[in-house]
């Protein structure tokens, strides 16, 4: 507050006080200050955006990926020299590590709250996101998780909790429907890693699969640090399932696929977003062939900005996208977008704008329902072929282009399909129309 104080208008001074969380940035760069233009140098304000993901431990590769995605969005916003509330905004990115550990998750959340961040992107895991969301809610800090999919996260009634990815309820249903209808699974074995995410998605899958007429022949468990699954797979083998569903992450799904093959189990695996990575192919090797997975959103290559995002990411970080980077990129942009619309970086002010979001991200057109879940999240099913995930079909979801009417009729069509094939499941709220409706699925 030494030199620039004279150039700052009174209006800004008061707005600075109002921001509370905003902190004054260093004086504007000299070239700008020297410009002979009439208006004095624009005041600046620094906005702290927190990001939390596991940067160490078994999921560090995914955690860094998330962080990179959000960092890219923040750096792009900084390069644009956005003006919000009359001040040029500089975003200050705070990347924190929660080790995928719920205890560490709340510690880091408190750290960010104490640092007076204006918003939080994260966390990666449902297990860390849910306990941390309580702290953010109490502090009134908006939180957008790119990848926490456990339904509980947004069902706690917190106004600050949002996510840009379809939740496990939606994903589990689509997977369960697909497993029983298209893949004609009659006897299904389920394994999960006992995390909030793995257990959540496996439970939802089980409900949908049972409703679809399948029999769950084994329900086994492992943990998110395991590499040996021989014992549980041996048990599963004795039950002779048609399909093995895994609720968990790629670091387990990959070795599991390999051990499945080693034990001579012919059944294919099916799992949700956690295993739907390039890392899976690396870890499973030639045992990856033929397994299925689902990923919220449509395939990145098919998104309008998907290819560009992939190139940008690769150029900036010189690594390939692991999994959720596009989602954390979108999450950060959704937050910045809400700040722009509210014309304020103050949490209480732009929080009001967040539910009204209608943002064309690289993963989808993002709108939120009343709970903070992403609306009409599309879910795409993939199959491993020749060392790659090949998109089979996309179920549900609005297209990224603002072509709402078409999307609405698409949804209507699916709801019409609901009676067919879903049998006993049709009573399970309208959302079930999203699962297992092959005719209505948009082939992409």
């Amino acid at each position, binding site marked *: 507050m030494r030199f620039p104080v004279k150039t700052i208008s009174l209006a800004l001074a008061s707005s600075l006080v109002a921001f509370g969380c905003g902190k004054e940035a260093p004086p504007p760069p000299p070239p700008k200050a020297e410009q002979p233009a009439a208006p004095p140098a624009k005041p600046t304000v620094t906005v702290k955006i927190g990001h939390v993901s596991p*940067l*160490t*431990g*078994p999921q*560090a*590769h995914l*955690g*860094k990926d998330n962080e990179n995605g959000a960092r890219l969005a923040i750096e792009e916003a900084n390069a644009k020299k956005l003006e919000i509330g009359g001040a040029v905004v500089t975003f200050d990115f705070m990347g924190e590590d929660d080790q995928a550990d719920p205890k560490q998750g709340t510690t880091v959340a408190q750290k960010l709250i104490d640092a007076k961040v204006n918003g939080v992107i994260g966390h990666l895991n449902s297990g860390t996101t849910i306990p941390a969301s309580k702290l953010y809610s109490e502090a009134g800090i908006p939180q957008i998780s790119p990848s926490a999919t456990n339904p509980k996260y947004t069902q706690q009634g917190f106004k600050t909790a949002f996510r840009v990815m379809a939740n496990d309820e939606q994903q589990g249903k689509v997977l369960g429907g697909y497993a029983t209808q298209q893949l004609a699974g009659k006897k299904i074995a389920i394994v999960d890693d*006992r995390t909030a995410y793995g257990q959540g998605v496996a439970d939802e899958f089980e409900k949908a699969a049972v409703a679809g007429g399948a029999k769950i022949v084994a*329900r*086994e*468990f*492992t*943990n998110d*640090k*395991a*590499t*040996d699954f*021989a*014992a*549980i797979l*041996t*048990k599963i*083998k*004795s039950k002779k399932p048609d399909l093995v569903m895994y609720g968990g992450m*790629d*670091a387990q799904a*990959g*070795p599991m696929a*390999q*051990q499945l093959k*080693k*034990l*001579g189990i012919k059944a294919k695996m099916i799992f949700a977003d956690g295993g739907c990575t390039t*890392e899976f192919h*690396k*870890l499973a*090797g*030639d045992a990856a062939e033929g397994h299925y997975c689902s990923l919220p959103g449509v395939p990145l290559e098919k998104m309008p900005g998907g290819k560009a995002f992939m190139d940008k990411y690769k150029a900036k970080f010189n690594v390939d996208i692991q999994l959720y980077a596009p989602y954390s990129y979108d999450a950060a942009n959704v937050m910045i977008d809400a700040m722009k619309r509210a014309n304020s970086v103050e949490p209480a002010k732009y929080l009001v704008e967040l539910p009204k979001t209608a943002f064309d991200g690289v993963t989808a057109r993002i709108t939120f329902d009343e709970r903070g879940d992403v609306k009409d999240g599309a879910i795409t099913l993939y199959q491993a072929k020749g060392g790659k995930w090949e998109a089979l079909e996309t179920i549900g979801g609005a297209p990224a282009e603002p072509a709402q009417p078409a999307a609405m009729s698409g949804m209507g069509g699916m709801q019409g399909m609901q009676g067919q094939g879903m049998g006993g499941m049709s009573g399970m709220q309208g959302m079930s129309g999203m699962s297992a409706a092959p005719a209505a699925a948009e082939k992409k």
Partner: protein
Amino acid sequence: MDTFIQQIINGLVLGSIYALVALGYTMVYGILGLINFAHGEVVMIGALTALTVIKLLANSGLPGIVVVLLGLAAAVPVCMALGFTIERVAYRPLRNAPRLAPLITAIGVSIVLQQLAMIFWGRSYHAFPPILPTTGRDIGGAHITDLQIVIVLLAAAIMAGLMLLVNKTRLGRAMRATAENPQIAGLMGVNINAIISATFLIGSALAAVAGVMVSANYSIAHYHMGFILGLKAFTAAVLGGIGNLPGAMLGGVLLGLIESLGAGYIGDLTGGFLGSHYQDVFAFFVLILVLVFRPSGLMGEKVAERA
């Protein structure tokens, strides 16, 4: 029945690896009375070093088995050097310090090694290139791959060799003397420092072998892999009686079998009340039972004054 045999095979493979790592814990404990918590990380460094070499040579046209042996040949000296350095830098200066001090440095070394490995090898998982034959054979309806047979036999051979070394050679005699009483062994002309270094060298070499076995069997290596493996191996060492070589082997194999059978049958035995996520609980329950009735472990000697 075939499921039961398969579970026994699973347990044996897992147990052999645990046993090899457990030997490293138990040897150091027997001689120094120190729990070398960095041992799991030595296994990890061994696995990643071997994997780096194996990846380099994977497309060289050499037969897969030769490539893996070359990887092992690279990992063993690296791990030996590492073990030697750890002892010199982190443990020797504290040899006469209170018990807790070297324990804390051990944990510190473990964290440092893990972070260094993360910086050097990155956060990603490393896959083992598919260069080894995946053939196997069926025994009574159960399936075992050739690699797993090699793992079990090699582990058994190494353990037998170690027993010979400790019980029949001059070095072994000096090691046993040092374990019994370092001061008096020193007075008898044993070079204590050299013996302790030798212990770390041997333990680390075993760790390197175990690291290659783990990464080859599970086709995966990661900078974080040493933590759980080290914990399990340490448990195995305690189960068998820490400080006792045959105990570590027995403890390792037992722990592998308990885990495997526990995960396979606990659900059926309890009518679904307890599932396979109780596999670790089951293993530790057995450990507690053993310790209640035999506080020094299954084959442990009186080590109470050291603990």
